[in-house]
């Protein structure tokens, strides 16, 4: 019997800033419905499918999950997200 197991969905918020915000038509943030155990890489693939202009910006960006930077040596596809995680796309900073 081949019954496909329906994985329960979860929600992740994505926040955009500066050049990344301009690449997504000036949206501050969006909530994405994703499957359980979605990775950061998969979530960002969804973002860039929706906003192709984001692809060019993303390469210069750091990512933060729940207000903490993701170390730059951690591949995005290895980061499993949890329900209600807040992901932020962080272009090079220029405060001060």
């Amino acid at each position, binding site marked *: 019997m081949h019954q496909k197991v329906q994985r329960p969905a979860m929600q992740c918020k994505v926040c955009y800033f500066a050049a990344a915000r301009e690449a997504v038509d000036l949206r501050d943030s969006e909530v994405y419905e994703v499957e359980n155990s979605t990775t950061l890489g998969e979530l960002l693939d969804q973002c860039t499918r929706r906003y192709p202009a984001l692809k060019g910006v993303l*390469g210069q960006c750091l990512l933060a999950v729940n207000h903490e930077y993701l170390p*730059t*040596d951690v591949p995005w596809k290895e980061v499993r997200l949890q329900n209600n995680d807040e992901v932020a796309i962080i*272009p090079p900073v220029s*405060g001060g």
Partner: protein
Amino acid sequence: MTNSTLTIPSTPGECDQGDKTIVELTSESLDCAQILELVRDPTAGAVGTFIGTTRNTFDGKAVISLRYEGYTAMAKKHIQRLVSQARERWQLRHVAVVHKLGDCPAGEISVVIAVSSTHRRDALEAVPFLIDQLKASVPIWKKELLEDGSGHWKANKESVLPQ
């Protein structure tokens, strides 16, 4: 302490002996004198400061304004962490880090860091640490608006980049 233009809550409980840490991102104009008063203390012999100001030229072009935006919750958390790191290295009394968001026309103040300490060296050394680290990692951005109508997102040379 009362003030009419800007409500700056202190963060109690982080330090002993009533040392204050004030971290704020605000769309209001920054009042240096007011921020200095927040850190001045009869037990502190020194106040060290950094006052960042919008320069009116960049590469010979006239700058009209800088437009700042910030990831407020994360920025405040990371500034608080920088202050904690500074307190581990230097003996500090009160610390205020206040950053402007929104438009900051040429000549106006974008950031004020004020640090008080019993002896001057601690305050004077903590200030460059705080502004350098803020510029490297705190999620705040500015877009430079030039007289010719163009606008450019800036990147600090200290900013941490992906590998």
